[in-house]
């Protein structure tokens, strides 16, 4: 919100919103997912651009709604119009507002994790990096295999927790090896996943959503989670 407003956007938050429905869709529960998605489409009916902070939600709305409603021409048309208006957060800043420097300041090394749906469904990878480089004082240090999955995969993380944790373990090693203090991602699932293990392992790195980084004005990110005491 802060970042968008600083960039001069009149942004509102439709209070009735709940969920994009991806959890159900990915689990194969089309019926349930459709109901939830319909609620979403109702809440976000209109003409304004819709900005989505999480990459997987954005790809659900932009891409998978078209599959979910493929057999209903009326709903499909609505989904298509919504898809055209929907933008993931960094995509909106860089490609719609044409802004790469939002006036943020953060002294520290940052590494970026390419969330899977954001990268492979929405093909967004240059935009977040451009925004990070636009942060005064921040240094972008690429990690090895930034585009490898973090192991979350929604319900996968609880259906096969051992495998999920093992995949995450490798991601954390790469984050550590990059030398960065902060890992930035544009996906709430990935962030929750990475944060969960960073804190369990007592690692010093923090995981931040790109908006948190961009909202930072003085070297401390706004609303950062409390650092777990060692």
């Amino acid at each position, binding site marked *: *919100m*802060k970042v968008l*407003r600083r960039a001069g956007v009149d942004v*509102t*938050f439709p*209070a*009735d*919103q*709940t*969920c994009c*429905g991806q*959890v*159900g*869709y*990915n*689990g*194969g*529960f*089309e*019926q*349930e997912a459709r*109901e*939830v998605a319909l*609620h979403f489409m109702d809440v976000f009916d209109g003409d304004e651009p819709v900005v989505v902070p999480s990459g997987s939600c954005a790809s659900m709305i932009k891409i998978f709604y078209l599959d979910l409603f493929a057999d209903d021409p009326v709903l499909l048309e609505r989904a298509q119009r919504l898809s055209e208006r929907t933008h993931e957060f960094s995509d909106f800043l860089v490609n719609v507002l044409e802004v790469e420097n939002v006036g943020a300041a953060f002294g520290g090394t940052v590494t970026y994790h390419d969330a*899977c*749906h954001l*990268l*492979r*469904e929405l093909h967004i990878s240059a935009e977040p990096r451009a925004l990070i480089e636009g942060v005064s004082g921040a240094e972008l240090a690429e990690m090895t295999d930034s585009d*490898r*999955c973090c*192991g*979350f*995969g*929604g*319900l*996968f*993380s*609880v*259906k*096969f927790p*051992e*495998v*999920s*944790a*093992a*995949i*995450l373990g*490798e991601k954390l090693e790469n984050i550590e090896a990059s030398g960065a203090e902060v890992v930035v991602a544009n996906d709430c699932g990935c962030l*929750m*996943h990475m*944060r*969960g*293990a960073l*804190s*369990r392992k007592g690692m010093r790195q923090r995981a931040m959503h790109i908006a948190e980084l961009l909202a930072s004005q003085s070297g401390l990110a706004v609303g950062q*989670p*409390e650092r*777990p*005491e060692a």
Partner: protein
Amino acid sequence: MTLVKSSQFRKASAAAVRSPKIQIALDRVMDHFVEARAHALEEFPPESWEQMRERASAIKAQTLENLDYYLDLVDRNVQRNGGQVHFAADAAEANRIVVDIAKSVGAKQAIKSKSMVSEEMGLNQVLEREGIEPVETDLGEYIIQLAHETPFHIIAPAMHKSREEVSDLFHDWLKTAPTDDIRQLCMIARSALREKFATADIGITGANFVVAETGTVVLVTNEGNGRMTTSVPRVHVAISGIEKVIPAIEDVALFLRLLPRSATGQRITSYNSFISGPRAPSDEDGPEEFHLILVDNGRLNLLKDPEFREALKCIRCGACLNTCPVYRKVGGHAYGGVYSGPIGAVVTPMMAGIKDAKDLPHASTLCGSCRDVCPVKIDIPKLLLRLRQREVGGSASERSSTWTERLLMRRWRSTVLTRAALERSASLGRFLQGPITRRNRIRKLPVPVLGGWTKARDFPPLAPKSFATIWRDELAGDGRG
């Protein structure tokens, strides 16, 4: 299809993750394959490689659409070349055909070059029962044959075996002295198998491609055992799934460019054999009889479904395995079937029945990396999703989601269907999480299914105020903050 143990994926994958041996092998091999492939692709500008993939995908799709025509063409052309074609509806029929051919020439020993479809068939066990000794000649297959195991990877079947284990196997079965020198181990296999090459009665191979236009079986190999198997014995039997057909001889060039690079990062393998029939009367050597067995064994399940048909485009390169974050951590055995990794997670349920393999479509984060590397552009994540959908809402024989899952999903749906419901659940959640939250994190979630999270990760507690509340109370009226 032979015994499929894919329903044990949960346990098997957890065990694999805990196994230092498997983890060491995966660490060593997976990166090697990925880097080799990346290096091989550097030769092409990205658009060229893309065009190649697109063309190969289109050729395969066209072939599958007209598969009856092309299979007939294969038969007529192989016959014209002096060979024989057999059609096998299932593994049992295919095994019977092989045994009949072997018995008709009084074969006592069969040498085999790598063939995944023969693993599906369980051919070796059948041959042994019939008093015919099968000898795998591909080094990796030879090792797993001695170990009585199934392949760990489509291209590198014995990648999970350390040199010490190989040395022990050779010591136990061939009575050779233990050694940790890899070259020496290879030379032991070379001598042992060289004898067999010279004396075997029948050679059995798979087929990488079957060219309809000329009735040609194409073998893509590196060791030389494929050539031995198809040159020395009196009879050559090639076994191929029906989906291996490509239409024209001039199509081979494209597939020979895609397959080795995708599989091992080679521009071309050491040997490529093009076999269209038995030896010509004037040939100095070569088999007198050539048989091609075309096998269905569940592939028609994939063919008859317009969405799943594309899974039959697969050229068995293994690239999807090498890039898959799940395969890279668990390896091939956990998938419980002959085909593992992303493609295995699609074809095993389709060929063996979803119920026998219900975990496999969920053994994926749907990251999409497999789709990126597939040389024939199979949309594997989409197919996995479709399988998940069938487990929930498919036919009676497909429905296999658990009662718990269905309940959870209905709960989720109700919770997020309206704002009010969500806020009520959140309030309840804030109340319940109090006792289990320490220092702003939840270390143990005592809940079924979701509790698995906290085995290795902390769970974030719900924030004291939802964003919607903050918005309502503070930000909405703010205009420009």
